């Protein structure tokens, strides 16, 4: 049982980490968009 948990966690931690990074990037892009609108600059 412990082995299963550890092995499962070992495999599933990567999509979980991906989800975290995706959230960070999306949040940052929203801030990029807001700043671009505020300063009347191009987003890219």
């Amino acid at each position: 049982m412990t082995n299963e948990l550890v092995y499962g966690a070992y495999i599933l931690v990567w999509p979980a980490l991906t989800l975290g990074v995706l959230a960070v990037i999306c949040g940052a892009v929203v801030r990029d968009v807001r700043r671009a609108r505020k300063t009347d600059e191009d987003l890219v």
Partner: protein
Amino acid sequence: MNENGFTQFSTATVLLLLAAFYGGTYLLTLLIKKDKEDTSGFMVAGHHVGFGMGAASMTATWIWAASFYAAATSGYKYGVSGPIHYGFWGALMILFIYPFGRRFRQLAPNGHTLGELIHARHGSSSQLILAVSNIMGSIISLMVNFTAAGALVSVLSPLSFETGVIVAGVGVLAYTLTSGFRASVFTDFAQLVALMAIAIIIIPAVLFSAGGTEVMVEGLSRMTDEQASLFSVDAIMNQGAPFFVAVLAYAIGNQTISQRLFAVREKHIKSTFVTATLGYGAIVIGLGMIGLMALSVGMTPIDGEMNNLIPQMVSTYLSPFFVALFFVLVIGSLSSTADSDLSALSTIMMADVYGKNLAGDNPNPKTMMLVGRITMIVATAAGLIFASFSLDILVMLVFVGALWGAIVFPVIVSCYWDRVTNAAFTWSVAIAMALFCIARFELLEMTGLTVLAFEVLASVGGAVVIGLMVFGFFGRTAGLVAGSLTLLAMLVYATGFLRDYGVLMASLTAYGTSTIVCTAMTLFSKEKFDFDLIRQRVGSYDEVEIEDHSDYLPEGAK
């Protein structure tokens, strides 16, 4: 399913998926289209890409189609630790370059390529060595990505390999041609969101459809002791170590990275590259776990072809809907890298070749834009032709990898040490390449004192790799201490041992030789270079005002 065990889509379905992907991406670029693009926007998005867009772009660019296949292959071949030994070191390539990237930006805030900086520091010969290595790398990358598109389309549909190659090439060119790097960065975000979302769904879906963790744990009994160990020496020496050696080389030799170092707002370089490191590592290691799962359930790759592992697992355990998601995942990853390669190639031709060598003192922005767009068209055509012929790129890859290794020390040290000369740069790279070839292709009999000499050179190379990494983050003293300790350890443990790992020894020889030659020639030099000249010599071709962060000093320069 077809007779090979892959889900088979109809021609119409695949064409619809491709049209939706490339059509959607093209429509996205219309949102940022300008009536008149300037060279700074076309090459580096005006140097003010934000953290979110920058991190998304760096992550998407660094993940190419081969990342998934190679990580899965590593998981299948080396077991539990395999995916980590592919993805972790690949991720570190992004992380370890950023301290140097901040130095590059400090020296050349208006820069577009690393070659421009080296041109301002040394002149044309050093710059062109760097530019040629960048061009070769990007063309190889283009070819590999177009090839991956052809292979995927031909495996999952009745369409031919050539059709897949052509659709990918034309699709990428269509949305990149008008706005260049700006289009690349903007579409990278959308592509990365799709890519990450699909990875988040597919990995657990395969795990649970294949029987869950219970089946995976049972599968450990099928593995060898090395495969079942998280600390497999086999995996470290054959997969991890060669990648570790390449950490700085790939980053220095790749214009797609330099371009983003020059494009992201200077204060966001660190956060951008750290986030991209985590993103790349998580996605690639995660998808590599599908290779480990394949090993655990006892799957054999069709035709012995390791690249079939992921499509095979997805086709076997998931519904066609998930296979379609996987299709989009691969097309998205290869397209995001291919558009970055097109932007990189066009920027090198615009800035390094036209701007610094052909145009004299008066580069014309209009001509420059024309050069950039023609480069994109020619590069796409070349990539399509090479991909269609399925050329064996192994020899080319070997040389490019060695060239990147040979230039790491001269490039970095040229940005910190004012006595390095153009001759020291050029000769160190030339001699390093010559000795690399001798070691890699065993042009001399690798026995006795000869092989010992190469092991010593390789030991210096190992010390340089570690020393430079530490230097980037903690400064000169720490770098020298780490390098010296590594050299000592390598001389004790690697001599008599490295000879069994020819590829690794040859790669390290390139690093060691260029370091020794460059350092020796520099010590004989009496020149003193004024680093402020770089800022004056590397200018904007559009006379755009840029942010001034001249008070900033990166760790490595302290």
